[in-house]
């Protein structure tokens, strides 16, 4: 158990003068599950890209099974036995499970030199590896019919078939259910007992403490420490990651509430949700909680007109309105920050300024022409108000960190001066420090009298931020809890009802 299999020393990598990794080290022992932790931007992905040969380091040494690895390609490194399960799984959907497992290695694996394929052999071989992992997947089925969790299993089978001795898993649980997580953990423990080392990257603290033996923390591209998981707890780990203790993640709630602004009555959408009724007052934060598939995002999209409800009524300031498209919603003072920032949040080719003003462009124009001066002033104001860290208003959004991208998306919605804002998973994929800033921002919006609906999967977030919490289960609202009565246990009880 104590034999070192992979050792990385003094690794440094710069991008155009900025050090992404500065003298980083990592030691992986045979059969251990080693967590690599750090905020977004700490250098984890650059580190892993170097390890699997996608990037080459400026300096430093990688010793794997006693040999120094230098200038190796992705292929050579995977042949040596280091495999990575990427967060966004790389598969060919139209090929079968077996074809995917052996893709690119058909000749070597099957000892077949002719160039003709033998799908039967591939299938038999694939079945062997899958059953070795204890995974019940038909190797003949096309990849596109599998769930994300099953695809992950196939990726792991691929790594195992490659005789991987080190497997890197990047956020493996970000898109799978709790039950699938426990199946994954069983496989990880299995691999571990066979001496395979796992480098486990995740933001989810509970998982880290459940599955990992050792934890290495990076911060701002620097190595902070490596500790045994048993020496640490959540708070001390967060402190290592952010470099300071976060005692109170959530700002003080706003106490003054105004009149009811948004009133939703009996909203229905077939197959998605039914009989949804609630009110939100000025300055109030209504949390919406529920498990995956409970209909949270669907309700938000119905109110915003992205996917309107079948029936039911929406009143704003007591007046009934019809919302059939996002334009209707915006015209009625509703703003929406989607959970899917990349897909629905920003336009990657446009600058920070251009994204910030996208939803309110008609206010910065003379006739059909954009008023540059006005637009610049508005953008700079928003950048200052939201403390967006960018080199300037003309920087591209794609070059910002996740937290700052999220601020740009919120800024875009705010620029249209909404009375009601729906925030869907506002802190997803954002690191701890930036989360706190987003929370402060949300509270300051409430303080200005904006009615806020906040959907979140993170219970501490819902509990810490909301004045009231609506709990959903399978498309039905099972409770609306006040801040006082709400607890994690109570929310879960209603969520699984």
């Amino acid at each position, binding site marked *: 158990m104590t034999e070192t299999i992979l050792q990385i020393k003094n690794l440094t990598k710069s991008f155009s003068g900025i050090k992404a990794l500065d003298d980083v080290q990592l030691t992986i022992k045979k059969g251990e599950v080693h967590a690599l932790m750090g905020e977004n931007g700490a250098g984890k992905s650059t580190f892993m890209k170097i390890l699997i040969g996608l990037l080459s380091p400026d300096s430093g040494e990688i010793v794997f099974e006693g040999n120094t690895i230098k200038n190796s390609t992705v292929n050579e490194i995977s042949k040596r036995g280091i495999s990575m399960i990427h967060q966004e799984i790389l598969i060919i959907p139209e090929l079968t499970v077996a074809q995917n497992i052996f893709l690119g290695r058909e000749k070597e694996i099957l000892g077949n030199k002719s160039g003709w394929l033998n799908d039967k052999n591939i299938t038999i071989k694939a079945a062997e590896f899958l059953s070795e992992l204890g995974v019940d997947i038909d190797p003949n089925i096309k990849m596109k019919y599998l769930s994300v969790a099953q695809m992950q299993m196939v990726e792991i089978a691929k790594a195992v078939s490659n005789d991987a001795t080190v497997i890197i898993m990047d956020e493996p649980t970000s898109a799978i259910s709790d039950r699938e997580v426990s199946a994954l953990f069983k496989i990880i423990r299995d691999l571990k007992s066979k001496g395979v080392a796992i480098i486990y990257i995740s933001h989810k603290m509970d998982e880290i403490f459940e599955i990992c033996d050792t934890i290495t923390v990076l911060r701002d591209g620097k190595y902070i420490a490596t500790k045994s998981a048993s020496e640490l707890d959540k708070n001390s780990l967060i402190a290592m990651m952010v470099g300071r203790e976060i005692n109170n993640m959530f700002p003080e709630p706003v106490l003054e509430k105004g009149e009811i602004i948004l009133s939703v009555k009996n909203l229905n959408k077939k197959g998605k949700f039914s009989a949804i009724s609630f009110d939100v007052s000025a300055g109030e934060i209504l949390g919406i909680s529920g498990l995956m598939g409970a209909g949270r995002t669907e309700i938000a999209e119905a109110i915003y007109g992205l996917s309107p409800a079948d029936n039911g009524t929406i009143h704003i300031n007591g007046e009934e309105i019809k919302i059939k498209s*996002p*334009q209707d919603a915006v015209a009625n003072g509703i703003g929406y920050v*989607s959970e899917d920032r990349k897909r629905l949040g*920003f336009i*990657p*080719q446009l600058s920070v300024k*251009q994204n910030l003003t996208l939803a309110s462009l008609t206010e910065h*124009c003379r006739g*059909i*022409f954009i008023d540059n001066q006005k637009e610049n002033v508005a953008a700079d104001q928003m950048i200052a108000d939201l403390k967006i860290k960018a080199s300037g208003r003309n920087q591209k959004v794609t070059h910002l960190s996740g937290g700052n991208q999220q601020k740009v998306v919120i800024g875009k919605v705010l620029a249209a001066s909404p009375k009601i804002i729906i925030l869907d998973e506002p802190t997803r994929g954002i690191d701890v420090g930036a989360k706190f800033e987003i929370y402060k921002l949300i509270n300051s919006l409430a303080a200005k009298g904006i009615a806020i609906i906040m959907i979140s999967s993170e219970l501490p977030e819902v509990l810490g931020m909301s004045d009231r919490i609506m709990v959903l289960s399978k498309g039905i609202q099972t409770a609306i809890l006040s801040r006082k009565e709400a607890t994690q246990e109570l929310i879960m009880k209603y969520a699984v009802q």
Partner: protein
Amino acid sequence: MGNKLTSRFRDIGQYGIFLAFVIICLILAFSTPKFFTVSNLMNIGTQVSINALLAFGVTFVIITGGIDLSLGSMVAVTGVLAASFAHPDTYPLIVPVFIGLAGGLAIGAFNGLVITKSKVPPFIVTLGTMTIGRGLALILSNGRPISNLSDSFNFIGGGNILGIPFPIIILVLAFLICSAILNKTILGRYMYAVGGNEPAARASGIRVNHVKMWVYTICGLLSAVGGILLTSRITTGQPNAGAGFELDAIAAAIIGGTSTSGGTGTMTGTLIGALLIGVISNSLDLLNVTSYYQQVVMGAIIIGAVVLDSMGKEKS
């Protein structure tokens, strides 16, 4: 100012192509004395004008993530339409011009309507319109060229104002207007947004379908200007005119740095792309290279430009 200018060029990602264009012009100026004469430059400008007009139109379309293959057919239909009303001593000049433009507008709007209402990919819709348009041109003209056009109509493609060929004047005007639309109007900004990330544009409250209607309609209108220019220049309404023009126009846009995946592109780039194509074919003519080889050279330049562009992107 200098700094602002260079940063603008870098920003629009056409520094390389602009440089290539200047270098090629310099080489030509030294290798053939005929190149840098006023008459030859005017000649290039006139030859480039139609392709540039179509390329401006298709640049709008490509920026929104679409494509328009019906440009060449629209040139033919609008040319035939205009020619039918341009015989001497029939109607005043405004009539054929107006009818030609209206024809382009209508076909462009039809493209936009089908694309936004049916959700059929623009490639397929405009492939259909391309064939329909060609058929319409043949129907309207009975399959025969329409000649005997009025002098005033023929002035559009063949006349001069203060020694500057009229097509060049139209080209410059069109460039200024198209640049302004793209850079200075809300519509232009929305085009980039729709092409960059359509779902996000929709979620931002942008009427994506309106934007698409606009770009295909503008594209049709510019094709009509091209069709009228061409008809006037060859003094005949040709139902077979404009075949393959769409590909030259798309090539100019792509050489100029417009990404076929949408969201990026500039009118300046497209103009340089069109000029580059014009200069190269002109110089190959001057150097007595046969037109067969010209096609090979042109193809190589299209690929080369995109390869350079993507290499540049990787570096940054």
